[in-house]
């Protein structure tokens, strides 16, 4: 018989539990839907950046009739100012009027005047103005016999000096990366936490848990469930983050792809920390319920904490140095959302990052056994909600 083949130690049993929870949920439709939803949201954000014009300076089409120097000068000046100006030579006034009407040019330079559609953009107007002044001054200087050398000296730009300083924080690109990061982290922590709670309630409500606990220890069941669901969440995050980076690179949405990779690593790291902190709480909450309908009630406190952390972190996008945000980034329950935002925005000094890490790791180490105790005390009690105090005592 198979008795001889039966292994006698129960080490690694949690791995079987983890594997089941991973595969069962991977095959669920809600997993597929949430993955696709994440990708769609990311795509919208990335594409909006790539084609919304936020990443580059403005660009204009400028037509000219007659000699080109004024238009060409506008192009050169535009380059200095970060404005792209494309020039189009037009044969005559008729063609110019036509080009203005169909929108292929924003303005047309005639030798001595500018024609624009309805109103002239001040940026473009300023460029043409400056270019035209330069052309007239050059002509004047020519007439007065000023040499090319003298003119070049007079036109030489001011020397530029630089000082050593960290890059300016709060750049708009970083803010958008931070926004995506906090949305992803919130969705992932909350969504997968709920899955842990649901998984626990399912086992309790179907009563299979009594059979399971006659075979394995509660800690193994709990650890397996958290690890299995956590790895699924991590995998989804990696897939979505990779997708976002590739999309950003392909569309040129981000100037510095390295910052996106760094942000992705940050999100993944803080997901692991945050999930480790929250998952056992979700499991304990699930164990306190006895029917799936009670899920919403038992997770209300955790739900609120995550939601408040989320809103503080969204606020941090505007003001990453604020006192509330700083405190939130150091508390274990809000750090997984607030700290990554501050790091991406360059607002967190290294010592605060280290402190935050120490606090969340330390409190997880304290919290997990306590949550596990509640779980163990409540998991076999059926018939209505279990009170926290009873669960705590039952597991003594």
């Amino acid at each position, binding site marked *: *018989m*198979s*008795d001889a*083949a*039966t*292994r*006698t*130690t*129960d080490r690694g*049993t949690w791995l*079987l*539990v983890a594997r*089941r929870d991973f595969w*069962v949920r991977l095959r669920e439709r809600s997993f597929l839907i949430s993955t696709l939803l994440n990708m769609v949201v990311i795509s919208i954000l990335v594409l909006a950046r790539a084609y919304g014009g936020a990443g580059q300076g403005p660009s204009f089409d400028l037509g000219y009739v007659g000699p080109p120097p004024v238009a060409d000068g506008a192009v050169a000046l535009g380059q200095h100012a970060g404005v792209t100006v494309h020039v189009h030579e037009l044969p005559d006034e008729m063609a110019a009027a036509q080009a203005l009407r169909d929108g292929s040019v924003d303005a047309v330079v005639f030798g001595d005047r500018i024609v624009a559609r309805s109103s002239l953009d001040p940026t473009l107007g300023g460029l043409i103005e400056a270019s035209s002044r330069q052309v007239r001054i050059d002509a004047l200087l020519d007439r007065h016999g000023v040499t090319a050398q003298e003119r070049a000296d007079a036109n030489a730009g001011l020397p530029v000096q630089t000082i050593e300083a960290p890059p300016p924080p709060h750049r708009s690109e970083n803010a958008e990366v931070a926004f995506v990061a906090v949305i992803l982290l919130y969705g992932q922590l909350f969504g997968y936490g709920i899955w842990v709670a649901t998984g626990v309630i*399912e*086992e309790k409500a*179907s*009563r*299979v*848990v*009594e*059979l*399971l*606990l*006659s*075979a*394995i*220890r509660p800690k193994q069941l709990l650890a397996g469930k958290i690890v299995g669901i956590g790895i699924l969440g991590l995998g989804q995050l990696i897939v979505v983050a990779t997708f976002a980076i590739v999309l950003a690179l392909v569309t040129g949405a981000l100037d510095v792809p390295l910052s996106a990779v760094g942000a992705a690593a940050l999100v993944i790291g803080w997901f692991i920390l945050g999930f480790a902190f929250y998952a056992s709480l979700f499991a304990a909450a699930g164990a306190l319920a006895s029917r799936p309908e009670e899920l919403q009630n038992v997770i209300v406190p955790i739900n609120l904490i995550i939601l408040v952390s989320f809103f503080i972190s969204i606020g941090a996008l505007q003001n990453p140095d604020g006192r509330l945000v700083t405190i939130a980034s150091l508390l274990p329950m809000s750090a997984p959302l607030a700290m990554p935002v501050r790091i991406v925005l360059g607002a967190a000094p290294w010592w605060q990052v280290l402190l935050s890490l120490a606090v969340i790791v330390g409190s997880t180490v304290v919290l997990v056994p306590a949550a596990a105790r509640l779980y163990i005390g409540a998991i*076999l009690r*059926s018939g209505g909600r279990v009170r926290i105090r009873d669960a705590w005592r039952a597991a003594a």
Partner: protein
Amino acid sequence: MLQLIDLRRRFGDVVALDGLSFEVPEGRIVGFVGRNGSGKTTTMRITLGVLQADGGEVRWRGAPVDAAVRRRFGYMPEERGLYPKMRLREQLVYLARLRGTPKDVARDRASELLQVLEVIGDPQARMESLSLGNQQRVQLAASLVHAPELLVLDEPFSGLDPVGVDVLAGVLSREARERGVAVVFSSHQLDLVERLCDAVVLVDHGRVVTSGTIEELRAMRARNLWRVEVAGAGAEWWSAVPGVRLDEHRDGEVILELDDAADPQRVLDLARAEGDVRAFGPIEPTLAQLFREVVAG
């Protein structure tokens, strides 16, 4: 052999187990009977480690039971339940592997059990799609799939149709006789217990009131009853024998209770002197009668 030694457990002010002890030898089927709330389920849960005892000890093959030993136990809880959305065979294989059975062995056994237990349904079907009776058979398969050395079944026959009862009875007998499994199950169907079990443990208020084989229980019973039917006998003809008194008068026959001093043969002689003896013999009480007697007394 499973040994439960002086198990104690309280729930608040309620004493569920009050020094309960009994044994289940390997290869034997032991029936565990008692009224509702007498402590049967608590005993089984403690045996499986699902519940902690306040005091006492559970031993298997002479050694204290720990998590590793319990992996070789099979259990059917009173409150049935498996994963509703998991497929039958996948579920059985998973449960067997949790208890350390290798994957391929578990798969073979799962398929075999689904056949033996005559579970109607595709092994790929989901649990929730089965009828209740079929779910119960799968539940039994779940307790057997890892080839346990000890089977602990809480009310395994409740909810089964007569065919299901026969199938389950057959499986339990085979597990005990052929594989040498120690089997203990609780039941309120005392005729089944009587038919199936080598020994019976009768529990009340968290203690074992009496235990032994059915024959031993009968021998131990307090009352010694005899049924006598004599045609044309006079009233109170038995009063000549000391230690005999009337228990019950039915039409044409009497049930007599004899104390230790009374000799049944003397009663028979007397009866023959009275008239035609149509029936004479000891009353073999059913387990149900014994049960009522012990619990009431």
